[in-house]
């Protein structure tokens, strides 16, 4: 409670903590709903995963770090054992959606865009911030939807979000796990070792060479791993920080554009199966590489553009 009454903490941070508590409760709801779902092939594992995630998100601030660590390990176990499953799916029928669309029409774009608009507005108010803005946008969007149609009751929102959360499954916390891996890499001194090795190859102190290596490294690493999020953590710690940022380059430009350099790699690799191979099947294409072949040229143009952009703005 001391947190919420502390006057030195901004209102935005306090509101964000309330949003986290709400998000945590949504995750716990997903866990409990699946536990009681007779159609879920693995109710216990699913419940453990979502409940543990919910506890860390909602109450992590007040739990000692090591205890959070234990809860995260407990959360990871059913995920690794493939025991986090989807239960009964209550997707809307085509008829229901068409009926709703006839009623609401193009006005549906207003609540859809509300979240992004609120995020931008609140980002401009330093005491509130973008993330709290997202949360407020969601509330506003839900209110508008409820205003459009009386069928949009709180229960409908909750169950629709449970359906989406369950369908994304454990991979939903991949970015958080990767960030934690990055923190562990940093704490263990992995970055220093890589910097030592790379330092033997490329001349330290030349920021432009550093940028080229960082950008192309991101692209290649992403192609090998199929995941730019996994690559950005390793590459920023190992190459971006010691060879580019340490010499005064702008972390906003270099740190962020490196990620989209990684996306150029995503466009070129069959490892990113979701984006490049699954569509081939969905569209009944004959050439397994048919999507990638149409992306290689734009990816190559964009990597050059981004290197020039980073060097120009660094």
């Amino acid at each position, binding site marked *: 409670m001391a947190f919420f009454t502390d006057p030195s903490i901004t209102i935005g941070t306090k509101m964000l903590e309330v949003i986290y508590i709400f998000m945590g409760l949504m995750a716990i709801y997903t866990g409990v709903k699946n536990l009681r779902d007779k159609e879920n092939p693995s109710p216990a594992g699913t419940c453990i995963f979502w409940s543990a995630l919910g506890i860390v998100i909602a109450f992590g601030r007040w739990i000692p770090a090591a205890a959070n660590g234990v809860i995260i390990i407990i959360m990871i176990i059913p995920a690794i054992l493939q025991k986090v499953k989807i239960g009964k799916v209550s997707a809307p029928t085509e008829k229901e959606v068409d009926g709703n669309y006839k009623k609401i029409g193009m006005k549906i774009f207003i609540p859809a865009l509300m979240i992004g608009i609120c995020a931008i507005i609140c980002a401009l108010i330093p005491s509130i911030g973008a993330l709290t803005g997202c949360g407020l946008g969601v509330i506003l969007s839900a209110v508008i939807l409820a205003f459009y149609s009386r069928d949009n009751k709180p229960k409908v929102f909750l169950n629709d979000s449970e359906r989406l959360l369950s369908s994304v499954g454990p991979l939903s916390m991949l*970015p958080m796990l990767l960030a934690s891996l990055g923190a562990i890499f940093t704490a263990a001194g992995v970055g220093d070792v890589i910097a030592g090795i790379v330092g033997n190859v490329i001349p330290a102190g030349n920021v432009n060479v550093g940028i080229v290596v960082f950008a192309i490294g991101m692209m290649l690493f992403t192609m090998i791993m199929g995941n730019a999020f996994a690559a950005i953590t390793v590459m920023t710690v190992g190459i971006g920080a010691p060879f580019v940022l340490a010499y005064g380059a702008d972390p906003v430009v270099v740190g962020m554009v490196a990620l989209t350099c990684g996306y150029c790699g995503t466009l070129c690799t069959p490892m990113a199966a979701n984006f490049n191979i699954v569509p081939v099947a969905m569209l009944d294409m004959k050439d397994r590489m048919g*999507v990638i072949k149409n*992306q290689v040229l734009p990816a190559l143009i964009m990597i050059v553009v981004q290197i020039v952009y980073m060097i120009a703005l660094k």
Partner: protein
Amino acid sequence: MEYLKLIGILIVIVGFALKKDSILIIACAAVVTALVGGLGVEGLLTTLGQSFVDNRSMAIFIIVMLVTGTLERNGLKQAAADLIGKVKGASAGMVIGLYGVMRMIFAAFNVSFGGVAGFVRPIIMPMATGAVEASGKKPNEEHVEQLKGMASGMENITWFFGQVLFVGGSGALLVQSTLSSLGYETNLLDLATVEIPIGIIALIVGIVYYYLKDKKLTKKYYGSEGGKK
């Protein structure tokens, strides 16, 4: 042995390349790196717990999902289909280009219409082949195959470069937290702003490339006269 610390990176690269379970790979890499790097079990749990809680912002998509499903239920996809369906008399390449513009704008607001399965297959592809038929030609099989590739490519390019424009997107959040653990503080609005020129260039590159490619293929498969074949 300093180099032993790199074993975690090796685990990540090899694990992802062999398509092992992503969470298993990351958990292994974290545990092994912590133990080799001298953090010990307690250090592992503390670092893991602390950074996970610090990075709860990346779970912001959970609250966004509170309305995503209900927006779909209320006809978001149908509205998007009607919006792009208003276009008349465009070539297949132009249909794909227009879809790119629409998708990128909405991606910047973190709004998706269901990806290849939900939108490209049921809406964009019929529109693209419809555009070929409308000009009095019978769609060539090879041409349609390429159109599928181009539509998927546009889908991916605009989503990747559009979503980084969303203030609070998971990519920027990961960059922010990685930089923060290295001692560089950044804010989300700046991270999104710096991507605006890149996003616009990516969109233009996609549109021009697919437009020219479609034009070339049309010439190749149907002849320059544009007549029936």
